């Protein structure tokens, strides 16, 4: 994919910031030998991360679009002759899609980007294409008493989630009419989606120690879909925080085929023709139900699993297809053993951390290869941070799923989180 002058093609990476994106170092490594990166820091509403900005400036060309209109930003980027564009954060997919359209580069169309980031638009598209979905409502439409009554008549539990959000942040289970009325009254306009809870299967089809939901990692290159693998999950921490990823998922072949088929149908329904997708699905008695489709590779956890297990770099794959390369990955070798990432979550009622003990002891467990501290002493915590509020991430490998489950038990026994609860203050 070199240019006529022998140089590597230039790829625009719309960078979302250290809090939500892959690290600049990882992106730079993924680009090695594939392209040279043109860094565009997406318009953001948080404080500037000067250290990251300085670091990025040493990794490639940068375009400062601060204060520019999207049209002006496109003009500034065009001068550098980009051959493709990528974005790895949900929050900036829409802006990147508009930019790509202005630059004439392959990416999601703005309409598809909207369906990939607005859960209401996504649910609507999936339903319209015949995929099974839970009942869902735009909370803005639930102002009238009879509208709320019809929701209540359909039964509980319900799930309230931001229309645009990641990592289960601010996602809450609703079990009563009183709570429903309270959250509807408190919701800011245009922000929240209400869904029926996707029912748990009577007999979980995933193996012991696995939750009944998975993600399917897929690659779409010029409309051709390759399945990279299926990632399993350990049981959620309340209300909807993820506690661990297992690759491959512990699912029988017939179910794996169903899950893959549903993920591909979902990608088609949303109009995806290129990119790497992370599609989350729940296994129910009536078959797989899409939880959500993400228009980017899975985050750091899934990236690690596929790289460690199959030597596949999903970040790099997204770069290659963005540059127009036709990539098809069929008949991937079956992974040996199980690679895991376990996220140790604080209790949902904990409000601040005083100690996280046992991190060094967790590192001594056979199979554990890495322990990454998360929130620590002095940090305030809340379930509203979702999965990102973990106290430790523990990564490693096991010979099989049963061994991975035993390691998880041991990790949870060794890492002890203490702190103050709501009533303690």
């Amino acid at each position, binding site marked *: 994919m070199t240019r006529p002058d022998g140089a590597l093609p230039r790829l625009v990476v719309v960078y979302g910031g*250290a809090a939500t994106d*892959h*690290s*600049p*170092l*990882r992106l*730079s*490594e993924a680009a090695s030998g594939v392209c040279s990166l043109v860094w565009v820091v997406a318009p953001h509403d948080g404080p500037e991360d000067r*250290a*990251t900005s*300085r*670091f990025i400036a*040493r*990794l490639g060309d940068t375009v400062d679009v601060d204060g520019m209109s999207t049209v002006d930003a496109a003009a500034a980027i065009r001068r550098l002759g980009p051959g493709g564009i990528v974005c790895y954060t949900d929050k900036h997919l829409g802006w990147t899609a508009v930019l790509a359209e202005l630059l004439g580069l392959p990416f999601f169309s703005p309409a598809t980007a909207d369906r990939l980031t607005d859960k209401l638009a996504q649910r609507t598209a999936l339903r319209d294409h015949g995929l099974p979905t839970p009942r869902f409502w735009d909370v803005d439409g639930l102002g009238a008493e009879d509208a709320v009554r019809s929701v209540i008549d359909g039964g509980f539990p319900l799930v309230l989630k931001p229309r645009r959000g990641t990592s289960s942040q601010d996602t809450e289970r609703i079990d009563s009419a009183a709570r429903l009325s309270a959250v509807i009254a408190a919701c800011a306009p245009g922000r929240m989606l209400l869904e029926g809870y996707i029912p748990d299967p009577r007999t979980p089809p995933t193996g012991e120690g696995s939750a009944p939901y998975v993600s399917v990692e897929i690659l779409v290159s010029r409309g051709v879909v390759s399945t990279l693998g299926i990632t399993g999950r350990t049981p959620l921490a309340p209300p909807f925080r993820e506690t661990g990823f297992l690759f491959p998922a512990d699912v029988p072949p017939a179910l794996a085929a169903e899950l893959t088929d549903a993920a591909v149908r979902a990608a088609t329904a949303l109009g995806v023709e290129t990119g790497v997708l992370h599609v989350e699905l729940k296994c129910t008695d009536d078959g797989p139900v899409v939880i959500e489709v993400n228009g980017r590779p899975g985050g750091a956890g899934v990236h690690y699993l596929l790289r460690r297990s199959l030597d596949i770099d999903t970040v790099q794959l997204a770069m290659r297809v963005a540059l127009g390369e036709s990539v098809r990955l069929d008949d991937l070798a079956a992974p040996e053993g199980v690679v895991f990432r376990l996220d140790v979550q604080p209790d949902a009622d904990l409000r601040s951390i005083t100690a996280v003990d046992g*991190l*060094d002891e*967790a*590192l001594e467990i056979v199979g554990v*290869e*890495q*322990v*990454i*501290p998360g929130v*620590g002493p002095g940090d305030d915590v809340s379930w509203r941070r979702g999965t990102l509020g973990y106290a*430790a991430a523990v990564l490693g490998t096991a010979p099989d799923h049963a061994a991975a489950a035993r390691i998880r038990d041991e990790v949870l026994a060794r890492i002890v989180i203490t702190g103050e609860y709501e009533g303690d203050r």
Partner: protein
Amino acid sequence: MPAITDTIRDVLNSSARLAVDSTTLGDDDNLYQQGLTSHAVVNVLMGLEDAFDVELPDALLRRETFESVSSLQAALATCGVTDETHGDAS
């Protein structure tokens, strides 16, 4: 004057968010295994460059450079930072 490796450990303790105190680690122990993330590398780099008043060559801005206290020491040596020059700077 502290040895280079002592200053490296000070920087790691203040900016790397490792699972353990870096003074308990050997020079060749793998820092990623102890919790160093590629995000935290940014702060480690800035901390080292401030502490030693150097700028590492851009070609060294890769994962391997930050793998251990030894690899960081080797990277600093390319900028002329040795225990002798580190002492002279004081």
